[in-house]
């Protein structure tokens, strides 16, 4: 008889959703910290509220969307060079 496969915490999609929500909570907490911090940035815009968070989020979305479009131009089948 096959042993019952072990269930891991991450196997449950409810737990993955919990993790995802937890990440948002951490993100919002970090934004809140911005209100209390004294910043000394070389470029003044970097001191705006939530600059780094917004930049990171938008940079990654842009990165993925552009890379996805690049696939149309760059992607070939795995045996492309062996033809």
């Amino acid at each position, binding site marked *: 008889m096959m042993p019952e496969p072990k269930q891991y915490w991450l196997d449950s999609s409810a737990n993955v959703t919990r993790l995802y929500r937890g990440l948002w909570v951490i993100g919002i907490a970090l934004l809140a910290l911005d209100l209390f911090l004294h910043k000394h940035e070389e470029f003044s815009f970097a001191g705006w509220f939530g600059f780094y968070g917004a930049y990171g989020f938008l*940079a990654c979305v842009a*990165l993925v969307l552009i*890379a996805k479009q690049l696939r149309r131009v760059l992607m070939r089948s795995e045996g492309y060079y062996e033809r």
Partner: protein
Amino acid sequence: MNADFPVALILILGAALVPLFRGGLRTAYMLLLPVAAFVWLLMLPHGEFGHVRWLGQTLVLMRVDRLSLLFGYIFLIALLLNVIYAAHVRDTAQHVASLVYAGSAIGAVFAGDLITLFVYWELTAVSSVLLIWARRSENAFRAGMRYLLVQLLSGMFLLVGSLLHWQATGSLEFAQIALAGAGGALILAAFGIKCAFPLLHNWLQDAYPEATVTGTVVLSAFTTKLGIYALARAYPGTEMLIWIGTLMAAFPIFYAVIENDLRRVLAYSMNNQLGFMVVGIGIGSELAINGAVAHVVADILFKALLFMSMGAVLLRTGTVKGSELGGLYKSMPLTTGFCMVGAASISAFPLFSGFVTKSMIMTAASDGGLLLTWLVLLFASAGVFHHAGIKIPYFAFFSHDRGIRCEEAPRNMLIAMAVTAALCIGIGVFPGALYALLPFAVDYEPYTASHVVAQLQLLVFSALAFAVLMRTGIYPPELRSVNLDSDWLYRTVAPAALRFCERLISGFQRAGGAMFSAGIQRGAVFARRERLPQGLLVRTWPTGSMALWLMVMLLGYLVLYYVR
């Protein structure tokens, strides 16, 4: 002790004896070599030693200063970790190649003149290709061949550049080199190939993922970092490097997002990290050079750790393709943990090594008012977390469970990964130890509240972007594919152009041959006809006609004379 003795020989000559040992004794012997070399370095005084007269030039085999010593230390640590990681490998050739390769990289670091540098430069190329060929597959053989050609081209640039530089300045010293002459430009091109400058970069992504499980880890430590060392030595403060580095930090991350082979993803992220170092050298301030060199140390360790974890996956499952993997944390929990330490380090999480090194380069860029460079580097920082920090562990160990059940990595691999992970965290928690070894005195504090919060915001929201894109299904799936890069030029366009030229030439040959033989035939017919009595060639010519032709010639001469 004798400071004239080239420390590289401990490893290169020591490698010759490796075939005499077997099993545990061999591992012990191979561990002893980098330890002995390390102790040797610790005892060396600063200065120039090992002078050799050659062709009227004085070669300097050992130049010992803070810069060369730090590279020496980290190269030896990398070698030591590699020996542990590869202890289970029976293939003697790989062990010998690794030692000779590491030894020649160290020889190049201590070279005080361009000729000594050239000799070791070539030796790194020739010894390292064996680590690719040792995979013993058709693909590896071809990739190794391409790699070797590119590396030897770099060596040729270095040699010709050095000779031109010598002619122009009368010196072969390996020190700051002016970019003005052809010599300076060629030497920069030679270094640029090793550093994987844009368009000169693709040997890296082409060859490293084709090497053996352990070979890729060895390769990742030395060649590109030797290129960075050479740049720091010869071209600090060269403004062009800021722009080259900025470009390097940005473009590979797009490839990394869509690449399926996870070791190739790491090769792209290596390119991106090299970009940060090149920017630092281009800025050239004390903080920037310190940052670039510190980041070399950090990068050697976390990149080794990431390649080690992917090597373990390749060893146990036979593949490192994102499209085939997933759920491996259940089978390889320790490897997963070590990989995540490497991922956190390359992503510059506070308390991990990248945080205390990369930020020096970022600060140097903002101090210098380099707005565009700073913005691009910040984009690249978010991007590297995205593709190396999240994508690598996510697709290999989490993601969709493909049902692969395998053993945890071998014990020696786990030990190597544990020590490397400890070093990554150690540097992050106690940056002072690394800062004390940098070329210039350090007046920089990475752990300020605003820096920590800013970096955490950048990273957490990058992770949120990944999670949102994943959950909405926008994130592009891992697909079995290759992506065209600059190697397409020499793997497809160049052979096609050659075939076209070949066809053109043989076409000309056929057409030309036909025309030529028709001409000969017509000439022969003509000669035969004119040889008959009354023919042009046998006819007797009257003197009158000769005088007439002479007059025509003289008249022609007269006309020409007046015209002029």
